[in-house]
């Protein structure tokens, strides 16, 4: 595997070339200065100054609203799945890792999810290694790292003047070879420098104790602490909706006069309605049970089912919780 190199000044040319093959989504700053993964048009100037995006890029694979099919005069009409290739540039390693986790749910089951499968098939993910993690990051404790490309097709590493590109999958190889005239081989010293930067970033990330969580949580199900750790939760869905691995969804119909659609939309286990039965019975009636489900699902059930926690340590839930709850603190309090 050889690293390729492209200078920052040539990056727009590379993205322009990729645009000839399909849509390219890359970080653009919005009017408030936030970097947002946006479909590029010709003269957009991308920004690499961001630490991470407010919203996780899971929506490229699992959009918040997905039309499953349309109703036309009361009959179902299957939608055409997208056949255009899409490149998503600048995904942080934690979020790429989350895509790998989502693959386990949507691709590894007895039944593949056709919408997810097609989006995943058509999407080439270029991850951008982190050199400046945030204090809310803890990817290194959940099997990831600032230079981990798992889940992505290409890993990009930042240097002062250049970007190093490393293909990780056949799709990534194809992508790089399609623009090989713009790339040169990276010198070993440059590779070493880039890796040093990643290592330096890694050292900044404070560890969180997650190892063995499945075992410890299996003993904590009846812990009285669930009530106290959850008591200040407001029951909004911010943590789930921002989480790159949360994937629970609802299916509803939106129909007027025989015409309309069946859509799936993000849902959240923090909502009381999530498990409410038609009879009025609710197996998870209070925030206590719902928080337990959230933690158990991420740090025990996912490990039992897929061999990995469904948390990539991106820290979005910590930064955005309206009442300042911190999943790291909850894990600690509950004895993980």
């Amino acid at each position, binding site marked *: 595997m050889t690293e390729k190199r492209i200078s920052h000044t040539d990056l727009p040319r590379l993205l322009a070339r990729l645009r000839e093959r399909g849509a390219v989504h890359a970080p653009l700053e919005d009017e408030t200065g936030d970097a947002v993964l946006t479909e590029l048009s010709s003269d957009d100037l991308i920004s690499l100054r961001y630490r991470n995006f407010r919203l996780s890029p899971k929506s490229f694979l699992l959009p918040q609203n997905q039309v*499953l*099919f349309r*109703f036309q005069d*009361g*009959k*179902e009409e*299957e939608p055409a799945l997208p056949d255009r290739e899409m490149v998503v540039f600048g995904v942080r390693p934690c979020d790429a890792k989350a895509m790998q986790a989502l693959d386990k*749910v*949507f691709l590894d*089951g*007895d*039944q*593949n*999810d*056709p*919408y997810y499968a097609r989006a995943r098939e058509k999407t080439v993910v270029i991850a951008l290694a982190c050199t400046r993690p945030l204090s809310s990051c803890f990817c290194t404790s959940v099997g990831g790292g600032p230079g981990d490309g798992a889940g992505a097709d290409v890993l990009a590493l930042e240097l002062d003047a250049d970007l190093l590109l490393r293909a990780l999958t056949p799709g990534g190889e194809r992508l790089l070879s399609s623009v090989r005239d713009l790339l040169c081989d990276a010198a070993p010293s440059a590779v070493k420098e880039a890796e040093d930067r990643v290592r330096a970033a890694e050292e900044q990330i404070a560890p969180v104790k997650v190892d063995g969580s499945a075992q410890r949580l299996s003993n904590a*199900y009846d812990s009285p602490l669930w009530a106290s750790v959850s008591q200040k939760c407001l029951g909004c869905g911010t943590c789930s909706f921002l989480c790159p691995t949360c*994937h*629970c*969804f*609802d*299916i*509803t*119909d939106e*129909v*007027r006069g*025989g015409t*309309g659609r*069946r859509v*799936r939309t993000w*849902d959240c*286990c923090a909502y009381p309605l*999530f*498990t*409410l*039965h*038609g*009879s009025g019975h609710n*197996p*998870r009636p209070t925030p206590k*049970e719902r928080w337990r*489900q959230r933690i*158990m*699902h991420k740090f*025990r*059930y996912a490990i*039992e*089912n897929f061999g990995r926690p469904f948390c990539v340590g991106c820290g979005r839930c910590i930064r955005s919780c309206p009442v300042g709850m911190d999943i790291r603190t909850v894990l600690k309090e509950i004895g993980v």
Partner: protein
Amino acid sequence: MARNPYLPYPARIEEVIVENEAGDIKTFRLVFEDPQSAKEFRYVPGQFAELSLPGMGEAPFGIASSPTEADYLLFSVKRVGLFTTELHSVEPGVRIGIRGPMGRPFPWDRMAGKNLLIIGGGFAFTTLRSAIKYILDPANRSGFGSVLVIYGARTPGEFMYKKELEQWRARDDIAVHLTVDHPDEGWTQHKGVVTTVLEGLKPSAENSLALVCGPPVMIRFALQSLNKLGFADDAIILSLEMRMKCGIGKCGRCNIGSKYVCKDGPVFTREELKALPSEY
């Protein structure tokens, strides 16, 4: 390419049968619109399917018919929520979507050659009907030992499948005991809860499996009685009711512990359930 699991098979409601006196349970006889769908939809008793009406969304229901009834599917539906209310208001001839079959059926491999004790309560008799119908099929009956059915309802009018219950009672290869909380004039069978009947009959746990479906209270007491009779936890088979959406283990709604009721259930042994959180 595999079929899109979110796309329902088109079917038509051929017949609507009012099952109980209260009129809030109806059985819908459905026929697929095209033979291809009928061929693809292969199910085993204990499984369920999602029914949908355009604009009203979907809801999961246990399949009440048996695969031995080749030409149609039966679903018995109690009117409780938005979807079931709408379904109750439709007439035969209406188009309906069916997605499935879904879930793990009754453990037919394990049931082969065994004496079967079937305990049902109220409305939760649907998949048990499917099982009984399947067992009593001439091609299958010799594959099982004795069959004892105990079915309880609040009043005689609340039993489902009344005609079939009568037919079964007339047969000698199945014993059917009906019991009600509130008998009316002319009621000649048992009075009281199913557990009383069960403890009176004292079926042997030897070489036996128990299938139990019913309201939570009934299940709780039936389990105690079965314990007394010596039924081991892995010889007691239950079917869970749970809120579900996708039916294929993705949407997360029916997740309990590391299981998804829609694909790992709805049928579980009591032993399996004991290992799960009691979030149902």
